[in-house]
């Protein structure tokens, strides 16, 4: 089966839906019209751009290009995690905690998938590497943002309790233990829900895309299961790393709670 090409006219018809939402927003005073339009334009431009990049990458297969694209993706994801924090760490840490955690988890799991599981030759074949990394980063990013946001917000709200525990001689790990656990749980719940609902309530996007693109359904399903497991692993390790790093940063070498290292509100 061949993919039916989409013409600009086809996309414009779908685009009318966005304009309709913006108009309703204007009427109902939802104040979303600007955001909706900007987001839709960003989607169009960013995806067209990545399309061009992928097209170029597919014809010039070289690990250096892959590393460059991966770095740009990681930086963008790191900024996104940072901007979703209500109270983020100040200075380099604000960007660093999430980015380092995403780098460790997403990169190592993508490499594992490329070299061991799918076993592609060469491993840096961009047709596999870029979409895999993209899906992993996108989902890990969600887990890490939620985990870190919950960690810093709860620490801020429960400062009296954390310090009360420190004053009684508990160490920092014990004083923040409950909050750390809850933050990791918060980061993991979306992917657990996604795995539970997959196929019953929702048809995952990647699988749908493959089927639309002409793959046999069972092959698409197997890839989707693989992706789900990779995402769950990436989100899990990424969130744990980020919350662990963040929880350490909340205390100094004398195990004092240092909320002055957070900013915003």
């Amino acid at each position: 089966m061949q993919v039916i090409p989409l013409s600009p006219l086809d996309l414009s018809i779908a685009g009318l839906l966005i304009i309709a939402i913006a108009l309703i927003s204007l009427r109902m005073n939802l104040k979303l019209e600007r955001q909706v339009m900007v987001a839709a334009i960003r989607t169009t431009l960013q995806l067209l751009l990545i399309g061009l990049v992928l097209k170029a990458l597919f014809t010039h297969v070289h690990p250096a290009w892959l590393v460059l694209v991966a770095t740009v993706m990681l930086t963008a994801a790191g900024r996104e995690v940072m901007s979703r924090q209500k109270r983020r760490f100040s200075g380099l840490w604000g960007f660093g905690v999430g980015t380092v955690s995403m780098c460790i988890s997403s990169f190592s799991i993508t490499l594992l998938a490329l070299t061991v599981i799918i076993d592609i030759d060469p491993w840096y074949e961009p047709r596999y590497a870029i979409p895999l990394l993209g899906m992993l980063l996108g989902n890990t990013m969600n887990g890490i943002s939620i985990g870190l946001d919950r960690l810093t917000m709860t620490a801020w709200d429960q400062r009296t309790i954390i310090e009360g525990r420190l004053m009684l001689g508990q160490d920092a790990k014990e004083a923040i233990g409950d909050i750390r656990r809850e933050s990791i749980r918060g980061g993991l719940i979306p992917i657990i829900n996604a795995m539970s609902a997959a196929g019953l309530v929702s048809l995952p996007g990647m699988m749908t895309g493959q089927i639309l693109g002409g793959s046999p359904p069972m092959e698409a399903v197997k890839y989707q299961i693989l992706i789900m497991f990779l995402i769950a692993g990436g989100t899990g390790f990424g969130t744990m790393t980020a919350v662990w790093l963040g929880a350490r940063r909340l205390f100094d070498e004398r195990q004092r709670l240092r909320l002055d290292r957070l900013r915003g509100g």
Partner: protein
Amino acid sequence: MLKIEDLRFQDIGPLNLEVAQGECVGITGTSGIGKSLFLRAVADMDPHEGRVLLDGVDSGKIPPPEWRKRVGLLPAESAWWFDTVEPHISRNGWKGLERLGFPPDVFDWQIARLSSGERQRLSLIRMLANGPSVLLLDEPTANLDAESGARVEDFLGDYRNEKRPAILWVSHDISQIERAADRRFRLLKTGLEPL
């Protein structure tokens, strides 16, 4: 003995003070001057300059949890993280609880239902369970009626005679400081002024 040398925090200091075992030093001062911050710095809860020594050993040489067990800080506002009293206070603390007017079933009480005065008295017992050799008391009777306040003062007096801790007692109530403390100071931005 507790020794405070050139202690500076935020815009306050340098503070110098020695408190012997069994001695109680009262600190007063206008509200917002930094009396609570002073106690927090001694307990090493906030970054500070200068040194705090306990029996000649610098606080930096002692692991923080150990330091805070030995230098017990009773904050003006107590913190609770379980639903009932029991997991916060070991049943060994019972003698003190009885003296402060609590019935035996106090261990099953819901934290959410405690009055601020009850919380304050319970947190005192909880802190003393660590057996600290220095007590840093931040307005220990602020939320109590006159009768409970006198009870806490008596209780602390007996505890002091028995265990001989060094005590820093912060209160805005000068008459209380005069009753409880051997020496008294007013905290100013520039230092401690003897009263």
